[in-house]
């Protein structure tokens, strides 16, 4: 589903954000992508989702060549960014219809698909609400709906549960697991939470200094003894927990803000 070879991005000014990433993701896998801040995690994700043009290497994503056919890639993937993509003022249902139609669906079909996906994510009846009136967990599930409305075969999730309360996190995990089980969806996710990586992902990649430094199932990486935390610390020399974006209270903190977007990850690596 994803195959990259030497995928790299050099930013003007000579900073190497990503030196060369080689990874393969099979159809139907849930893959976790971990790394300290500035390691090239978000830059890699933005390249794979066509938001950043790679400066070196090759990649095939969802059956299309990333460099030669970015529109082909866009048709087949869904992407949920860290901060989400919901404006505060317009009804989310209207935005979802526009989003679906930009994938070529006619209005009737778009409405049908939107209805299906909202039903499946327990969001029916909230279509007319503006983004600002949704709870943190609802917002995140709407973000998921935007990423899924066109029936992609591959879904990218950037820090999907950052800032959510434990219940909403568990709920989102359930939805992701079910989508994989029922529709064979492939999921590529970045996360700051090792428990999330441990429970949700079949396989993990750890990136540091712009290259993949470790790969394997959570069990393989742990080697039967330590925790993922120890593994991460010994590989990168840093604890993943120290790297939480500033202002993020972490899991377990009450979500009283209505899920306002956290610090956007777009600055990473620039």
């Amino acid at each position, binding site marked *: 589903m994803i195959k990259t070879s030497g995928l790299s991005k050099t930013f003007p000014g000579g900073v190497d954000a990503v030196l060369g990433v080689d990874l393969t993701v099979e159809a139907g896998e849930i893959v976790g992508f971990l790394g300290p801040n500035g390691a090239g995690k978000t830059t890699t994700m933005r390249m794979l989702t066509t938001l*950043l043009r790679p400066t070196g290497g090759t990649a095939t994503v969802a059956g299309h060549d990333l460099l030669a056919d970015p529109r082909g890639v866009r048709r087949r993937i869904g992407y949920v*960014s860290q901060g989400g*993509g919901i*404006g505060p003022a317009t009804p989310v249902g209207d935005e979802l219809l526009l989003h679906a139609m930009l994938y*070529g669906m006619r209005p009737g079909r778009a409405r049908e698909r939107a209805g299906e996906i909202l039903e499946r994510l327990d969001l029916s009846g909230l279509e007319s609400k503006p983004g600002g009136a949704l709870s943190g967990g609802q917002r995140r599930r709407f973000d998921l709906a935007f990423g899924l409305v066109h029936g992609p075969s591959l879904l990218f999730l950037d820090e999907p549960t950052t800032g959510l309360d434990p219940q909403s996190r568990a709920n989102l995990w359930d939805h992701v697991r079910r989508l994989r089980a029922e529709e064979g969806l492939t999921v590529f996710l970045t996360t700051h939470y090792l428990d999330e990586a441990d429970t949700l992902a079949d396989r993990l990649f750890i990136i540091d200094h712009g290259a993949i430094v470790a790969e394997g199932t959570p069990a393989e990486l742990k080697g039967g003894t330590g925790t993922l935390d120890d593994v991460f610390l010994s590989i990168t020399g840093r604890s993943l927990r120290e790297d939480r974006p500033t202002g993020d209270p972490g899991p377990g903190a009450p979500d009283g803000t209505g899920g306002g977007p956290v610090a956007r990850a777009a600055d990473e690596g620039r």
Partner: protein
Amino acid sequence: MSEVKDILRDTWIVFLHNTRIVLQQRVGIVFGVVQPMLYLVLFGPLFATIGTWETLVPGLLIQVALLSTGLAGFGIVFDARSGVLERLRVTPAHRVSLLLGRVLSSSVTLLIQSVMLIAVGYAFGMRAWLPGVLATLVLMTLLGVSLAALSNAIALNIGPEMFAPVMSTGVVPLILLSGAFLPMSMAPGWLDALSRATPFRYVLEAVRDLFRGEYATGTVVAGVAVALVMSALCVTVGTRVFNRENA
């Protein structure tokens, strides 16, 4: 050919979506036209004692274009910040459609505002030539496209904090130099020369001719040419900025 069809379709979808929002919320339309309307009502009767309504109303049309459409980039700043823009950029929609749909919708807003000003102008006793007024609305559409595209490009470049102060200050000299309140033919030489370096003067003088019923003049030709060149240029710049990575 199917590429062009896709672009037109996507542009149309984005245009309808944005226009529906504008029409539902209405604040954008009313807010933008308040200031020129105040000039029309509170300054117009005064101006009419020395000049004509047919001179003033075209000036206020340029004013509303700059004040209202010039600030159209505000919307894209919010969409960039809330992640909406990035979400749309991952769809297969052509980027030019995402920009153009938005820009055309701003242009419709300007058209409604222009009609409001012209209608009140007539009510105050303006005697403008109707075909000239209709031709003016076409020019206003071009002006709206230019200003909205440019405003979006600037907004994406300078970010949300700087946009409002820079633009609300930047449009003032452009309004004054267009001769919106008094024709530039009355200005001293240096001011007249400065004014000739700005595009809006040409469009404004063409509109004044059109309002008077003089349509076959060099001034009208110049105004139309400037409006056409300006919209082509601004859409090109806007698309380029919009296409750029990380924009």
